[in-house]
């Protein structure tokens, strides 16, 4: 295993000499999709918990479709499926966008995590104690002020534990990106496997790197919870 790592460590960590590969691509996939997905999820969650049935049902349909099908199938649909349509290939812009596996992966991962995160945030928004909102209304707050200063700060904090699970799941699911020819960590491991036939070492290194990042993420989120959820811990 050490010999393989000594020979291929650059490929596993950041480059094969021509392009970025391995861990750095995996982390880029994670960061981009989580940041974009969560930013979109906040307005979606507000719409999802809205009293307007039509708005709420529309967002429900989106999360239902994305949560009901596997990410792998969504990626295949976007990468091989959409690109096989003539409409897409005949337009210059869409042709250029969907030709690139990286674009498709980023789009699908962001939309997928956005669906899960929307449900997490919406659940937290709905669980806001009625008294807090009534207090805000009584203090003469507008709806916007209510969301900015009362509902969102507390709801986003309370969703931190389930949100951390979602981020780790996204990190794990970036490994399907190889299906769109993205040179992520698992793609490197597969290439090393076919070059050396040392399956255990090739996938074992990827396994160790993935685990290291997972445990770092767990540690980071524990710090975040200590900081932002300190007021919810039972008093000793």
């Amino acid at each position, binding site marked *: 295993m050490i010999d393989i790592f000594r020979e291929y460590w650059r490929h596993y960590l950041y480059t094969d000499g021509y392009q970025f590969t391995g861990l750095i691509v995996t982390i880029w996939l994670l960061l981009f999709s989580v940041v974009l997905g969560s930013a979109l999820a906040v307005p979606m969650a507000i719409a999802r918990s809205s009293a307007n049935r039509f708005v709420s049902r529309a967002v429900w349909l989106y999360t239902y*479709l994305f*949560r*009901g*099908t*596997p*990410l*792998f*199938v*969504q990626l*295949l*649909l976007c990468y*091989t*499926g*959409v*690109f*096989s*349509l003539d409409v897409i290939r005949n337009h210059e812009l869409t042709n250029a966008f969907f030709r690139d596996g990286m674009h498709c992966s980023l789009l699908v991962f962001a939309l997928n995590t956005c669906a899960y995160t929307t449900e997490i945030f919406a659940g937290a928004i709905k669980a806001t104690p009625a008294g807090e909102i009534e207090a805000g209304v009584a203090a003469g707050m507008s709806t916007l002020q209510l969301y900015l200063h009362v509902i969102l700060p507390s709801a986003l904090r309370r969703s931190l534990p389930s949100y951390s699970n979602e981020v780790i799941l996204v*990190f*794990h*699911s*970036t*490994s*399907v990106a190889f*299906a769109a020819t993205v040179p992520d960590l*698992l793609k490197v*491991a*597969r290439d090393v*496997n076919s070059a050396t036939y040392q*399956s*255990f070492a090739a*996938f*074992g290194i*990827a*396994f160790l790197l*993935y*685990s290291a990042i*997972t*445990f770092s993420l767990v540690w980071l989120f524990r710090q975040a919870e200590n900081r932002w959820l300190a007021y919810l811990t039972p008093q000793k």
Partner: protein
Amino acid sequence: MSSLLHGYGALVLEGALQTVQLAVCSLALAFAIGLLGACAKLFGSRWIAKLARLYTTIVRGAPDLVLMLLLYYSIQILLNGITERLHWTQIDIKPFAAGVIVLGLIHGAYFTETLRGAFLAIPRGQLESGTSLGMSFGHVLAHILFPQMMRYALPALGNNWQVIVKSTALVSIIGLSDVVKAAQDAGKTTTHYFFFIGVAAFVYLLITTASNLVLRHLENRYDVGVRKVNV
């Protein structure tokens, strides 16, 4: 049916059945491993509990796809080594068996945590009163702890089941002809890629929707005898 879907209806249907079979078998194995793991963590001796913790930590650290490839290739190589040493003919692991073993091992770790949490939700007095009546530990487990544990575990088990269904899609990568593989093959020959992968996505949507309905029914069943209060 065969004229439907450009003549690939039968292939897709077969793939869908394969997917459901794989998911159900993996669920059974994962549940068994999870039950063992939870009991090992809660009631086992120190070393057994440590071993169970090692297992859940290792498995939950890495993506299921990485573990799948690691185990799939390594188990085959290990088996080849053994059969060669014993001068037997090579035994090839079938993709279905490999899929069940790998998915069962991976999700067994998640089930361990789910079931452990549910066991912890039962008041300790239940176990103690059982043993004080002279019941053996196995009896207490089967007749007192397990039925109560299932009620607490069911919502999380439902989520785990949905995750298993969705991760069966990855088994096409190690060569199982499930619904994803069928859709890809049909798409390749007819060039209607978008349509066929859409069909595969629809099959998954059907499975998850149907299991949602069954789970709601099961939750109502296990909640029988629990008083509900409307606020």
